[in-house]
């Protein structure tokens, strides 16, 4: 009986203690603002660089606390719409720009950083590459703080090219490229590592070919409402069919994910890969290769995606990613200030050096120490046009259709006309 009497008392006490603790911690949190940083960085070393920058900012601003929240890539994309409309919305999150950013901007769930960019006579805006600011702007408003951009180009295995007697510097047109592929095949080498399972690695080909055929103006007109069924896009699609007809990829490429594909190149099982700017860095090679080492940097060469004969595009038209950080509507006002700090020249240089990114902050490329990255950076500096990934730029739906169709074309499952009609069907629904 005594025992039964004591228990409720103990529970009440426990409740009181926890209530006090909870209340204490809540009032404690009110004393400062918390920036909730939602990210997708699974690599601890790269995250460390961010954490160091965040810690340095916290030291300078004792009233601000920065909290990291991680979501895996696909989970992030799937959860974000709900998350943004909930009370648990993060303060800032990662963006690839394009159609998704546009959709988000129309909902009122995020706020533009234009005012912060233009404060102090545009101090922040002027510190960042205009092309990058432009790329993340919609209707004159800047919707994300640019952090990095990327460049997709061909990387090749020098030894294999030599063995097959192919001169990379002589590849100027798509026909040259196809000839090189045939020559590699004749020499018994698998010409290209392709990732048909993930599909987007193949969309790089269609995107570049469409850019080379249509050129900047033609592409802008298509996006503005002319659509993707024009002559230039038919020719671009036909080029991709021509490539597929040579059977240039490794066996089973239609099932290959991107890590599989990178391994094919890094293991020396194929001579060419159309890939990101960081392909030839030692870290990436070590990550990608089956033996944990991969190819030495000086064994890998790079060339820009070739032109097509009679196309409107030029060799300095670049294709690649453009990323930034979006601020949500109810984020603490310090978020913009932190982003300004995060994208400052010093921090951009740090990110370039330790995380192998190509920063969009002017002068940030001083931190680019890796020669192969510097090579990509040099090409990007001359860019006449930077096109974002189409599966981002055209929005998640049309983008995925482009990915699907790229694979259908290269594997010979669909004619250019049919594939373009599918893209057009999806596109017309968005307009």
């Amino acid at each position, binding site marked *: 009986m005594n025992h039964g009497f004591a228990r409720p008392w103990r529970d009440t006490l426990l409740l009181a203690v926890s209530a006090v603790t909870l209340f204490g911690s809540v009032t404690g949190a009110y004393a400062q603002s918390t920036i909730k940083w939602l990210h997708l960085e699974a690599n601890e070393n790269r995250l460390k660089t961010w954490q160091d920058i965040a810690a340095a900012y916290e030291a300078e601003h004792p009233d601000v606390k920065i909290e990291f929240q991680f979501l895996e890539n696909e989970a992030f994309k799937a959860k974000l719409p709900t998350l943004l409309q909930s009370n648990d919305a993060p303060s800032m999150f990662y963006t690839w720009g394009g159609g998704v950013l546009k959709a988000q901007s129309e909902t009122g769930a995020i706020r533009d950083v234009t005012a912060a960019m233009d404060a102090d006579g545009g101090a922040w805006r002027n510190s960042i590459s205009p092309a990058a600011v432009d790329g993340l702007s919609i209707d004159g408003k800047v919707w994300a703080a640019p952090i990095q951009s990327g460049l997709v180009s061909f990387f090749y295995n020098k030894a294999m090219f030599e063995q097959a007697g192919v001169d990379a510097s002589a590849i100027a047109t798509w026909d040259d490229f196809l000839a090189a592929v045939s020559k590699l095949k004749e020499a018994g080498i698998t010409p290209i590592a392709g990732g048909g399972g993930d599909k987007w690695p193949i969309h790089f080909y269609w995107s570049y070919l469409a850019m080379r055929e249509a050129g900047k103006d033609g592409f802008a007109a298509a996006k503005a409402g002319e659509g993707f069924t024009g002559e230039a896009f038919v020719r671009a699609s036909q080029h991709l069919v021509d490539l597929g007809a040579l059977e240039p990829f490794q066996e089973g490429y239609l*099932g290959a994910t991107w890590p599989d594909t990178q391994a094919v190149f890094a293991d020396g099982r194929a001579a060419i890969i159309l890939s990101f700017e960081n392909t030839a860095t030692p870290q990436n090679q070590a990550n990608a290769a089956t033996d944990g080492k991969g190819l030495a940097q000086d064994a890998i060469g790079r060339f820009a995606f070739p032109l097509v004969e009679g196309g409107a595009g030029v060799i300095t038209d670049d294709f690649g990613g453009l990323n930034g950080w979006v601020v949500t509507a109810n984020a603490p006002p310090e978020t913009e200030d932190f982003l300004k700090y995060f994208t400052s020249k010093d921090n951009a240089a740090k990110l370039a050096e330790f995380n192998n990114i190509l920063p969009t902050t002017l002068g940030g490329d001083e931190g680019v120490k890796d020669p192969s990255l510097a090579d990509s950076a040099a090409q990007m500096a001359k860019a006449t046009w930077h096109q974002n990934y189409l599966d981002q730029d055209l929005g998640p*739906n049309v983008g995925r259709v482009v990915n699907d169709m790229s694979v259908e074309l290269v594997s010979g499952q669909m004619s250019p006309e049919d594939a373009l009609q599918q893209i057009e069907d999806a596109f017309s629904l968005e307009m």
Partner: protein
Amino acid sequence: MRGKWPVLVLFLPPALLLFTVFVILPMGEAAWYSFYNWNGYGLPSQWIGTKNYELIFRNGAFRTALINNGLIIVISICVQIPLALWLATMVSRNIKGALAFRLLFFLPYVLADVAAGMIWRFVYDGEFGLVAGIWNFFGAAPPFWLADKQVAFYAVLGVIVWKYFGFHMMLFIAGLQAIDKSVLEAADIDGATGWQKFYRVTLPLLGSTVRLSVFFAVVGSLQLFDMIMPLTGGGPSNATQTLVTFLYSFGVMRMQVGFGSAVGVVLFIICVTLAFGYKRIFMRND
């Protein structure tokens, strides 16, 4: 009857509320969203009538998914269930090691679907996998089944049979144990052969278990998702989509919530029709 009212008033509302909030309401919402072109942000505002449904039935990948789901049911009935039944009759006998075999056959079912998908992705890999190893041993060029549009789904079917036959076998073992031994003894005395005993006595008495097993196979086919995603992701060229992976890849991943909801509604109608139809026709006496 009077005495039941307090019980009803007390116990029905919580369950009813939960069921309404988490089952009825979402279903109604999905039906509502399915008439909009909506990406999940803000509130749906662009009414497009039955356009989403037209798009579904024009979509080649949806047809493939539908056919694939049908194939899974057919394979389950023609291969998986006979196999499970055969193994069940073997391991339910009192022979040495029967228990060990029961455990062994049941093991794949215990494995998480995602893990099974990943394991079999590796097994089928034409570069490093087990299949590649076997082919290389015989000096043949290894196949890439998961990358071949014509073959990929059969490879997936193989994994499905492997994964779930143990579950059906367990059902049958339970069914076999419920059969009165004296009936079989009577058949023995009458001089029935092994096959006659199985076909004339065991199988008819197992009828309800078989019908239940088929029911689970049908429902399982319509729900199949977790194993496909790591195994093929629905590829190559959507050759291995099922209805649910189709919903996920075309609705969720493309942020086409309206379209995805329409797929959900179609899936719901198929499920309800099949489940109730089956129960009505085949399981009315069970």
